């Protein structure tokens, strides 16, 4: 079990760095719109779906699922950036950020699960 805790900590660190890189790259391309967080959350949802489909052993699922994908994706930033858009009266982009993230996110998770199950 100790090994799982260490793995969790390391995977969490890797996930956080990965988010910074992916979010940063996508944000630069999005010029102000929260594209980075969207890309991170959707790809994370796909990853978690894939892992679930693969049906890994419990400890491995904990390390990769909770540790890596958990640190990689972000609910708080999604909420924070939606609030920022609303604060600037960008109501359509704010609403779009909520609706698209949910719709595309669920789609990505389903796709991941389907691909993972087939492997």
């Amino acid at each position, binding site marked *: 079990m100790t090994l799982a805790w260490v793995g969790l900590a390391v995977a969490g660190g890797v996930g956080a760095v990965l988010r910074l890189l992916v979010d*940063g790259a996508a944000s630069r391309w*999005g010029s*102000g719109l929260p594209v980075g967080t969207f890309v991170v959350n959707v790809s994370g949802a796909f990853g978690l779906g894939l892992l679930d489909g693969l049906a890994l052993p419990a400890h491995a699922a904990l390390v990769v699922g909770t540790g890596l994908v958990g640190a990689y994706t972000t609910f708080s930033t999604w909420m*924070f950036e939606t609030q920022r858009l609303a*604060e600037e*009266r*960008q109501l359509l982009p704010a609403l779009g950020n909520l609706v698209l993230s949910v719709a595309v996110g669920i789609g990505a998770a389903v796709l991941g699960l389907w691909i993972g199950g087939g492997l």
Partner: protein
Amino acid sequence: MNEVWKLTTCFGERQRHEDRLLADAVLGTFGEHRLATSLLLRAAAGFGLRHHLRTDETLTMSEDPSMMAVAVDERARLEPVVERVLGIQQRGLVTVERLHHAPDVPDSVEVQLTVHLGRDERIGGGPSYVVVCELLRRHGVAGASVLVGVDGTSRGRRERARFFARNRTVPAMVVAVGSSERVRTVVPELQRLLPEAVVTVERVRICKRDGALLAGPSGVAGPGAWQRLTVYSSEHHLVGGEPLHRAIVRRLRAGDTRGVTVLRGAWGFHGEHAPHGDRFWQLGRRVPVVTTVVDTPDRVARAFVVVDELTVAHGLVTTELVPRAVSPGYSNFGGR
């Protein structure tokens, strides 16, 4: 009174000098020289020579915001500070402008009046900046914005904002624009209310007001002179559903403008409208926003075309001459 100078420098928050942040090194210099007044402002958005966007719209991109430091003192005291700042700053933009002390308002022109005060300094139980804005509005000054510093000096003393503190004496400034006649009538009362405040005046040209074109950008003052283009607007001024200042940054970034800084104020007013700031229960913000561009006259003229197109209904647009502008580490920008 001796000649008064204003030093303005723009850089990124993460920029470093030796073992500390550049912002800290610059403000440390201001403190060592015991400058009369100076403040450090954190910008809401901006970009520099590389057109790398800094914005607080997303979390990742808000980690290295644009910063602006402003210092005002007598020429003899500020001159060595300018040289020291140019010595430590590797990138960004440094400008030096000449100002007048408040009672000395030039005749029949438009001016920018700047009142340097404490963030939470009080007059009769209320924040002094609210009292100052009300006074300016009563005297028919076109508009004012309150910019709040996070660090600075006041009467020679370093005043740095702390997390758990009232930060009463941390510097802030009220920037107002109006005709010299109007501004002149305000000054005596202003000096009575805030006897120790540094109050300065500089010449500007009001180009646009609430969508009405009044004049083109300031003329060219000879080789080596730069211009500052300033747009005073508010968070609730939209153009095509987008906040005006965001639209300006986006459009100018697509063009050849070499730097923009957007500062968000805490309180302000424009024209006849009631002063506004944030409220406790709100979704959309209502604070003033100040967008500035400093560049060569030809580039400012091109930026003005874009700004003119975007300020259809809102905003106060001014231009002024900047006698000296240096972009450290970029020799093509201009000489000293």
